[in-house]
């Protein structure tokens, strides 16, 4: 039992009920294709991608205290790189890997400049870089296809060292791939955030001076955080490209960067599960509101205003504050 505990990095005794919920949730995700149509699976995949992007935002916002308006830039880097590779006719994994790698490299380079700043200046410089990527996506027609974007990206099959090959052309097949990748990615992030590195991030958020007094380089830690955030945004983009099979420049616009910020805020930025809950709530909310009324932006805006003024902890914050003590 101790070994399992070590491997999973969870304290099993304390979190038994949480683990049960988690197991139930994962089993639910895996049996979902048995009784639901393609549209539901598509929705879940979009939620999973938004979730990765929200983690990318929340790693910076909730854990390190930096608001980025440019995460869509890395998302687009992942999506365009993956799209280009897949269009060249490779199998799925190289596309995903190169998408993530390109996002990571861009994040390291831009992060080098971004992490010198905090608060408003950080928001502004990430906005500037994000919009630079946007203008490249829009105007570098030879490479990105301009306004039309990349069209007809194949959902290539998954070849594993020539051992076996799984076709990805159906929605359920790609669903399993996307869900497994997302779950693994979230698990890795959980481990990172519950490691000393994660504590350093939170330390920086709470008091930069103290962290630097302990002898830790604040700037280097921020750069690591920024790069991980870029990788997660890039992974989201890389999964997005084969799903939609089309990428347009709007994926990199700053308005796209706002979606995960809202989702994170909705779910709760100081809780690990916040971005998941937020992405689910945000996506379903948007889907329901769009069906009921033309004026979804008005309702969404009102919800955000209420959240910021009254419930800054989001759904999970409210859960921990009001419901959790009573359940015990």
């Amino acid at each position, binding site marked *: 039992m101790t070994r399992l505990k070590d491997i999973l990095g969870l304290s099993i005794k304390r979190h038994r009920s949480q683990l049960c919920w988690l197991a139930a949730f994962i089993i639910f995700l895996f049996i979902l294709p048995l009784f639901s149509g393609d549209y539901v699976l598509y929705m879940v995949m979009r939620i999973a991608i938004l979730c990765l992007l929200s983690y990318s935002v929340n790693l910076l916002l909730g854990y390190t205290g930096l*608001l980025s308006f440019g995460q869509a830039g890395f998302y687009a880097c992942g999506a365009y790189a993956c799209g280009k590779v897949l269009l060249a006719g490779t199998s799925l994994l190289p596309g995903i890997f190169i998408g993530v790698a390109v996002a990571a490299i861009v994040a390291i380079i831009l992060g080098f*400049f971004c992490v010198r700043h905090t*608060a*408003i*200046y950080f928001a502004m410089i990430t906005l*500037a870089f994000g919009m*630079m990527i946007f203008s490249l996506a829009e105007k570098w027609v030879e490479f990105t296809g301009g306004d039309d974007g990349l069209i007809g990206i194949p959902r290539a099959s998954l070849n594993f060292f020539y051992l076996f090959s799984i076709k990805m052309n159906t929605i359920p097949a790609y669903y399993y791939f996307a869900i497994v990748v997302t779950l693994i990615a979230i698990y890795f992030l959980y481990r990172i955030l519950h490691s000393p590195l994660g504590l350093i991030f939170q330390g920086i958020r709470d008091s930069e001076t103290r962290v630097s007094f302990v002898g830790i380089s604040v700037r280097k830690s921020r750069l690591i955080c920024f790069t991980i955030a870029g990788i997660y945004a890039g992974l989201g983009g890389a999964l997005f490209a084969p799903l939609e099979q089309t990428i347009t420049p709007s994926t990199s616009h700053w308005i796209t960067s706002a979606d995960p910020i809202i989702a994170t805020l909705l779910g709760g930025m100081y809780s690990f599960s916040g971005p998941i809950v937020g992405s689910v709530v945000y996506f379903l909310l948007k889907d329901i509101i769009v069906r009921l009324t033309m004026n979804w932006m*008005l309702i969404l*805006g009102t919800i955000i205003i209420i959240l*910021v003024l009254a419930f800054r902890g989001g759904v999970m914050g409210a859960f921990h504050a009001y419901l959790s003590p009573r359940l015990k």
Partner: protein
Amino acid sequence: MSNFIFQALNGLSSAMFLWLVAAGLTVAFGVCGILNVAHGSLYMMAAYFAFTSFQILGFNFWLSLVFALIGAGIIGFLMERFFLRRIYDQPIEFQLILTFAFILVFDNLTKMIWGTMLIIPTMPSLFQGTIPIVGRPFPIYNLFIIFAGIAVGLIIWVILSKTWWGMKLRAAASQREMANAIGINIPTLFTAAFVFAALLAAIGGALSTPIRVCDSGVGGAVIIQAFVVTVIGGLGSLKGAFVGALIIGVIGALCTLYVPFIELFVLYLIMAVVLIIRPQGLFGGER
């Protein structure tokens, strides 16, 4: 060469719109400490008010301008009094997100009221016509915009440095507690400052209607340009906002003429380079 001068003049007139929006952004940031992402939406609402008054209701140009100012002023008052006031002591992230939510609300409201059409009314007869500059016809209205922008700049300068109210504003901007202690009513002053900022955006929006296309998404586009301008000039510096607007307006116009494909890229590149080399901007003090 005549192309260059002509296009630079065009850039100068579009710089004035940037200046008016950026000036409001700067006043709100400098006094209330709030970076209002929805400031571009005030510009947009004012443009719609002016359009409705001029084109649909048939009032004259100046009266339409006044109506637009009143409308945007009321919106600014409501925003500050009931929403922004509650989050002054919160981290800047929450202010950015809250004011972003206002973009969504305003965009949707304009769609509900005016539909999704592009608006560009006829030029008021007062300003029809052109005058020859470097051998080419330059619209009188663009010339008027340049003078109006400079005039508003002078008015702001007089208000801030020569009047009692402006002095209180500067006091509150630099030492909030001290200003409060000597009997300045800070909450009221902040509301007034925010309304003043809204009026500056509204002048830009209302004056833009005869020559610039306006639709329900223009608020987001305008605010991004205003961010570029204020960041280059230095957040919180009015002089910086003016110079930043001139730089961005003229460089933007010249890029459109010579290298049309990388215009946007160049603007954001300038913004990023300024942030890297001199984050406080060209005219900002120590941060």
